[in-house]
């Protein structure tokens, strides 16, 4: 596959109970791009992700991964191309040891034992977790679990990485570590998250979903400067783009709320930014 593109055309999905999760979603993600998909709860992010490796089938519309359309026949190839990291690492790590888990994908691809071993070692060192290889998953901390979950996908050498809420439930240090790790990847990356600061840092482009439709699609910085758009989509600016809470409290989505810290005109501006 020469071009690792991901494209959806008028994607629509209606669940069996009649809920219309996706109304009309079209976008094209080029090779090597890093794209954030953001939106309120129930905007359709998870449903969209589940389409990208063929777990859910579109009610109508097309999905193009690489050179070809996603069909029943191309499913195996597509699942090899698109590495999907789920939100809860406990769902992703189901084998008795870390090694077995990371080896699960390569073994299913039918690789030789030596090749499997090489892939596992490579993936584990990529996420800096070599020393965890023989541990059972429930002995790991949240941050370690997350990194191993990523390793289980890396070992399949996917061209496109799809991550659902990667920083969810991590402590600040583990979050930093993960962001640094993801930044170093050269895959085409698609990330959904409510952690808008992470999106700002990791993705040069952002797609905003609202009620099953694409509300905006453009450079991340521009999108986060559009207050009206963020308001309609029940989002807000990343904290990094909000004002300093001491000298200039930002405009909040709920103006009637008193700011967390009262602005103090008399307070000398004695802090660094």
């Amino acid at each position: 596959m020469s071009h690792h593109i991901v494209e959806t055309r008028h994607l629509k999905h209606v669940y069996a109970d009649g809920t219309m999760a996706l109304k009309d979603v079209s976008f094209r993600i080029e090779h090597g791009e890093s794209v954030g998909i953001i939106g309120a709860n129930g905007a359709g992010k998870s449903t969209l992700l589940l389409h990208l490796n063929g777990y859910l089938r579109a009610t109508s519309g097309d999905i193009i991964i690489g050179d070809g359309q996603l069909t029943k026949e191309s499913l195996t190839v597509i699942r090899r191309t698109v590495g999907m990291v789920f939100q809860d690492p406990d769902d992703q790590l189901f084998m008795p040891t870390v090694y077995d888990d990371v080896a699960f994908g390569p073994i299913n691809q039918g690789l030789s034992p030596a090749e499997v071993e090489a892939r596992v070692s490579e993936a584990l060192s990529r996420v800096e977790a070599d020393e965890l290889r023989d541990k059972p998953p429930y002995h790991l901390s949240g941050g370690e679990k997350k990194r191993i979950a990523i390793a289980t996908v890396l070992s399949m050498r996917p061209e496109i990485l799809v991550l659902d809420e990667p920083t969810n439930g991590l402590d600040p240090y583990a979050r930093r570590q993960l962001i640094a790790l993801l930044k170093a990847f050269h895959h085409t990356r698609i990330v959904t998250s409510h952690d808008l600061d992470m999106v700002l840092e990791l993705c040069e482009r952002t797609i905003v979903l609202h009620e099953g439709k694409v509300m905006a699609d453009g450079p991340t910085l521009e999108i986060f400067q559009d207050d009206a758009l963020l308001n309609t989509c029940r989002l807000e600016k990343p904290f990094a783009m909000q004002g300093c809470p001491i000298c200039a409290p930002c405009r909040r989505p709920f103006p009637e709320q008193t700011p967390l810290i009262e602005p103090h005109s008399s307070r000398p501006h004695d802090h660094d930014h």
Partner: protein
Amino acid sequence: MLAIDGSFLDFKQLDLLALRQTAIHRLDPRAKLLTTLCFIVCVVSFDKYEISAMLPFLIYPTALVAVGDLPAGYILRKVLIVIPFALMIGLFNPIFDRQVIMQFGAFDIWGGWVSCLSILTRAILTASAAIILVATTGFPAICEALEKLKMPQPFAVQLLFLYRYIFVLTDEGVRTARARQLRTFGRRGLGIRHFGSLAGHLLLRTWERAERIHMAMLARGFSGEVHSRRRQSHFGKQDLLFTVCWVILFILLRLYNAPQLLGSLFTGDL
């Protein structure tokens, strides 16, 4: 609830024990599995009033704890968890079975008491053998051994998944129970009705999780067969020696009442 919480956490300790490297740990899992099975069958097949003939079987757990460098106190505590269940089974024996089968000084001893004690002895012996098996072998290796001994793969995979998710599920259960407890203020809450919906929720959550796990498996090319890494192990001479010696000892101990023989040796009744 906290007690259950604690005891499950402790099972992780069992896993860590399995990582040790002693002569017992290095044996092929199949050898330990077969020996343990034979041990359990021998112990369970004793007559319902038998106690004394079972006691020599203690040598197996004792020897393995010693050679396998296992913390005896810890294993004992794990075994104690099983006792209440065994007691529940034997509890009514003294009530229903009042036939006097022996006399101890001026006391008549009912058959029920003896059979209850016999059940307890069996429970202690079999539970300790099983726990020692896990502590010296590790659960995944046992599943693999079962598979090599021709158990169908779906069962082995089922066991592995059970082992993997029992921690996650008990965690969820404990959290739910805690949330309920914190809002009942020492009263009974809504009683048994309440527990119905609680259990129902737990089932639904488990179902959803199973779906997500399946999704994660499909995403990594799962096609119906779980290939796990084959640990390099072959059934060698030591394994054979270990199994055969123990099995012969168990059969002998099962056929002859060793304490009685020993006793009659001293009293000269042989």
